[in-house]
């Protein structure tokens, strides 16, 4: 019987100054940010495999965190690469044998820095990927306007723009094939969907994202995230 796999990316391809810690290991409401992200996948029926992609230098810390905050749930810890794309590829290579044996149906890829994603979003992304092959959550972008060459506001309709969130979900065999083809080509996509679209021709469907699915990027985001967690009684 096949299961779905959730990959949480915590290797941190973004800027990291000096020897500072990755922000996903910051405490938030009594648990680390990364633990909340793993917990999200644990709560979705059908996700039976968890992969956490980390930097090699964070492995010891991660083992300690998982032991303390996420006991009894098996998590495969994989060392990531220098880019998001490379980290995704390494996680897929880790799952490759199981994917080829047909033991993994859908793979969901999630940013560890999005600890508050509502379970509803994951369930909808997963259900849509099962039905269509690929799905991502997105929010309409309402505060943008087009500008023409003369610097005037353009009349063009901007309703086609969305702000892409994670998790992004795809059929595992197609996802693996896409990343293998990309590796052969030397292509590095900006997100999971761009690679699958390019190499497998999968039409990626957009499901409704959620404003609470914030990505901790700025210092202010930490306060907002804590406030939202407190409002939910520190429960997902």
């Amino acid at each position, binding site marked *: 019987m096949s299961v779905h796999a959730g990959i949480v990316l915590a290797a941190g391809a973004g800027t990291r100054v*000096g020897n500072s810690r990755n922000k996903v290991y910051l405490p938030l409401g009594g648990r680390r940010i990364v633990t909340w992200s793993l917990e999200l996948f644990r709560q979705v029926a059908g996700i039976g495999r968890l992969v956490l992609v980390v930097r090699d230098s964070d492995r010891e810390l991660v083992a300690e965190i998982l032991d303390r905050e996420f006991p009894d749930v098996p998590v495969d810890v994989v060392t990531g690469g220098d880019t998001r794309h490379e980290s995704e590829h390494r996680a897929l290579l880790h799952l490759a044998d199981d994917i080829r044996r047909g033991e993994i149906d859908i793979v969901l890829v999630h940013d560890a820095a999005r600890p508050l994603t509502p379970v509803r979003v994951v369930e909808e992304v997963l259900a849509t990927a099962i039905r269509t092959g690929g799905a991502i959550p997105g929010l309409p972008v309402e505060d943008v306007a087009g500008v023409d060459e003369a610097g005037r506001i353009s009349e063009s309709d901007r309703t086609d723009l969305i702000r892409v969130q994670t998790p992004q979900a795809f059929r595992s065999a197609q996802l693996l094939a896409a990343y293998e083809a990309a590796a052969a080509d030397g292509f590095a996509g900006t997100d999971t969907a761009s690679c699958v679209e390019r190499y497998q021709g999968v039409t990626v469907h957009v499901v409704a994202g959620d404003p609470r699915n914030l990505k901790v990027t700025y210092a202010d985001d930490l306060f907002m995230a*804590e406030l939202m967690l407190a409002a939910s009684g520190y429960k997902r």
Partner: protein
Amino acid sequence: MDNVHIVTLGCHHCHGEHLHEVTYAGRLLASTLCSNCGHRIAKDLPGLRRAYIADVEHRILTKPGRMLRRVIHHPVSFARGLPGALLLKPAKMEAELRVLSGRR
């Protein structure tokens, strides 16, 4: 968990990503400080103190359960770590109270 963490975060004040000092009072976020421009975001102290007291009550109530879980799952590491944890507790509490008094 330590009560001060150094991480790279974006700063809305000076823009760009810079080292930030993130300070906690127990499990609660207390403040962030941008190392580049000195921009500080902090909870107001009376509100933080109220939230801290409620959180400490919750920590005390849930402590036996959390300790029991660790005893069951990792009896050896629990036994090994207990003396050190007890010795460090006063220093941890003192650091938390320093944050609550606004001295950190």
